[in-house]
């Protein structure tokens, strides 16, 4: 009779974490930056169709890195959660914190109970009517949540990018300044990223309805030039 080998829980968790981290590290990174009139989400993404950044609700956006099919499922679940909540209660009752908690629950559950953890890291961003109301929730593959202030970085080279962005970020930046900081932090010192390699969207806090808006290549070029 075959006896299963004993594996210490610490080792089991570590193996799973390593596996997920490896998957995430293969993909390109993204950054979110708060600016005076809203939130900017900027991803390095050569694809026009497989989006990393998308709309969840009036004032909430979603961004994911890692395996596309996995974070896309999470994106759709988030839209469903928000739309059902808005339908049942009111559009004002849909908030990013509840959504972030739901994501954390789900990722944590899958990390400990399923055969394979999700190889994703996601960001739930929302804008208030002033900067004090802005939220950035960074949720990792194991369900751990961090509440980020001002900016957030997700993906393979997050550490290096976070350091670069931290150096150039300051509160009260304009959209233009925020985008420049995000793009140069993503690119690093040796590269230059053009608009065709970028996916950029903003949550514009001055909008009254759905605040999410994608920036077209021309617009990105104008802001970066």
């Amino acid at each position, binding site marked *: 009779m075959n006896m299963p080998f004993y594996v210490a829980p610490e080792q089991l968790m570590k193996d799973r974490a390593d596996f997920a981290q490896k998957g995430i590290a293969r993909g390109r990174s993204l950054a979110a930056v708060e600016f005076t009139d809203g939130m900017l989400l900027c991803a390095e993404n050569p694809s026009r169709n497989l*989006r990393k950044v*998308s*709309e*969840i609700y009036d004032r909430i956006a979603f961004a994911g890195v890692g395996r596309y099919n996995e974070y896309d*499922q999470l994106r*759709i*679940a988030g*839209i*469903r*959660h928000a*739309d*059902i*909540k*808005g*339908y*049942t209660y009111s559009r004002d009752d849909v908030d990013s914190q509840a959504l972030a908690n*739901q994501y954390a*629950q*789900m990722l944590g559950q899958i990390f400990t109970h399923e055969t394979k953890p999700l190889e994703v890291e996601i960001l739930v961003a929302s804008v208030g009517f002033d900067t004090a109301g802005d939220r950035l929730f960074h949720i990792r593959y194991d369900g751990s949540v961090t509440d980020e202030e001002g900016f957030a970085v997700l993906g393979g080279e997050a550490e290096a990018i976070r350091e670069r962005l931290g150096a150039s970020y300051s509160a009260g930046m304009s959209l233009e300044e925020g985008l420049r900081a995000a793009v140069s932090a993503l690119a690093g010192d040796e590269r230059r990223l053009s608009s065709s390699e970028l996916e950029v969207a903003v949550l514009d806090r001055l909008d009254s309805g*759905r605040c999410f808006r994608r920036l077209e290549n021309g617009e990105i070029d104008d802001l970066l030039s």
Partner: protein
Amino acid sequence: MNFPVFDPTDDPGPSFGELLKKTGLASTTSADVGRAGSSKAAEITHGTTVVSAKYDGGVIIAGDRRATAGNLISYRNMKKVFPADRWSGVAIAGAAGPALEMVKVFQLQLEHYEKVEGHPLSLEGKANQLSQMLRGNLPAAMQGLVVVPIFAGFDRRRNYGRLFAYDVTGGRYEEEDFVASGSGSLFARTVIKMGHRDSQTQTEAVDLMIRALFAAADDDSATGGPDSMRGIYPIVATISADGYQELEESDIAARFERVLAEFAEQQGPSTAGGQA
């Protein structure tokens, strides 16, 4: 509230209606309505006349503001014209409760699809969605909760405005020029029919809608006319390449003033003695 995650075989896709069914939140089923019995006895709030017509560059959609319950006016400033999304609008006539719920779900359905799929439905797809929702309401309609909407939008693939009329069974009829629905629609339609011209300008079309609604209110007691005492006027919205846009109330009020002045001039003082 559970996090809505489904098996691939059980996934509701981009449909918000399906999602509501799967989560048990869908509105009243036909069986419930059957149990509730006939609504004829209950005085249900009804919305009345709505009209729509094409012009050069888009479509106009308009509706009066009165809701009635039997012979009483139950609401004076009801909204019957709504944006469905950025490039389309919907106007409703019929039982107010189910009609407003239908509009709410319809708006959410279009938004939900757009967010899940990453691009909006085609205009025809939107028109078909409304058709399916009406079909779902058929048992309730048979019990007296009739809803008859008009759907108008700007087709961004073909670059022109289109409008659709419906019947209670969900039948969808694309109209070439104009459409009217609700209790005063007979009078409104006649006015539009007489005044409609191909490729009329936006201003001409707005004036025509105003005349049509005025005629409907003049002859149908369930349709509300311009109420200058309370400052309540019908809602008129244009849908063009620039999207859905409601006209300013002051603009509508001024146009009604002109129509009323014209009308008074034509009629002259009443000479027939009113003896009952």
